[in-house]
């Protein structure tokens, strides 16, 4: 798995680790039961604090993506990718309801809104 820490992104380092681990789980690069890099080795390799990595791993565990087993490592859970998908669907729902609200204000009909979505999706597939 690739982990790149940016010093200028303004995103806290633990958050960067979390995001990259999540996207590795989503893309299938990290499979269920695979272990994440050892906490202390990762801290050494990335030249960051052990506590920073600990925070990233603990939060990933709290969110249900991995399981920390004392002395054995941090394992990817099988439902990790499902969970991530669920979170993304939730995000899509939120964005869509926001779009619907905006459409109401703009007095756009349901048909027009559908058409707009179709056009945008076509543009994305063209890219």
């Amino acid at each position, binding site marked *: 798995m690739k982990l790149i820490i940016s010093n200028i992104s*303004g995103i*806290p*380092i*633990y958050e960067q680790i979390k995001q990259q681990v999540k996207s590795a789980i989503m893309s299938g690069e990290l499979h269920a039961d695979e272990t994440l890099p050892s906490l*202390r*080795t990762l*801290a*050494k390799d990335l*030249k*960051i*604090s*052990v*506590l*920073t990595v600990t*925070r990233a791993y603990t939060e990933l565990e709290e969110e249900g993506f991995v399981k920390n087993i004392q002395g054995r490592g941090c394992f990817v859970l099988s439902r990790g990718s499902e969970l991530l998908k669920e979170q993304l669907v939730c995000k899509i729902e939120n964005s869509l309801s926001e779009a619907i609200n905006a459409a109401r204000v703009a007095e756009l009909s349901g048909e027009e809104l559908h058409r707009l979505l179709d056009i945008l999706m076509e543009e994305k597939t063209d890219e």
Partner: protein
Amino acid sequence: MNNYLEVKNLSKSFDNFRLHDISFTLPKGYIMGLIGPNGSGKTTTIKLILNMLKRTEGEVKILGLDNIADEQAAKKSLGVVFDSNYFSDDWKVSQVEKSVSVFYENWNTQRFSELLDKFHISPAKKVKELSKGMQMKLMIACAFSYDAKLLILDEPTSGLDPVSRDELLHILSEYIEDGEHSVLFSTHITGDLERAADYITYISYGELFFSGGKDEFVDSFRIVKGGREELSDDLGKKAFGIRDFATGFEALIKTEDIKLFAHLNVEPATIDDIVVFTSKRGEQYE
């Protein structure tokens, strides 16, 4: 034992300076940075831990052992690196080993020669022929050869070039990787700590300003920037230090106060920002 170093209510009075009521704890397996402006008491604190100065009050425990009552036993597990080399200049590196190894029952000759190899130090060289970075690595090699559990470094990075500083940080993070070793190091080059340190203890003018997690420390402050007309009295009261100039101002505030100043430009603070702004305030009060 989970705490490798415990300092409780440590105080030392001199004629013209007082280190007052310093307490902090360094758990096993972590790196702690000791920071503060020059003359704030960092070296005094380290000397008190090492019993090189007599404390006025307080308590110091090294791996659970009292640093005075059990000094001999405590120092067996302790490695020390100063900003300048403490070996005799005219000794060869091989003589350094001879002189130091007699004090440690568990001295590992093979380990020492492996470390010399790793650090590219020739045993035939005299101490004075080594560069500053090499001398520092020699002190570290000695500490590692008797498997010191706690390494204390006083300003190890001052006077080192960026390459040697990076090497040192790498050596230290390798050292704590197994979770069985801890490091306390004082520095005023806070960039070194920005990433590698787990804990920060910040001493300002002899008083403890903060001791705790580094991320927590950095997160608890923000820098606000704005035009001069935006510099309100309220901000003046909340700020830990303000630098104002012809076209605007910069101030350090507590993160919990940012709601009050959300209309201004708010940025994360670096350790340097925090030390600089909080120390200015100290001077104003003196």
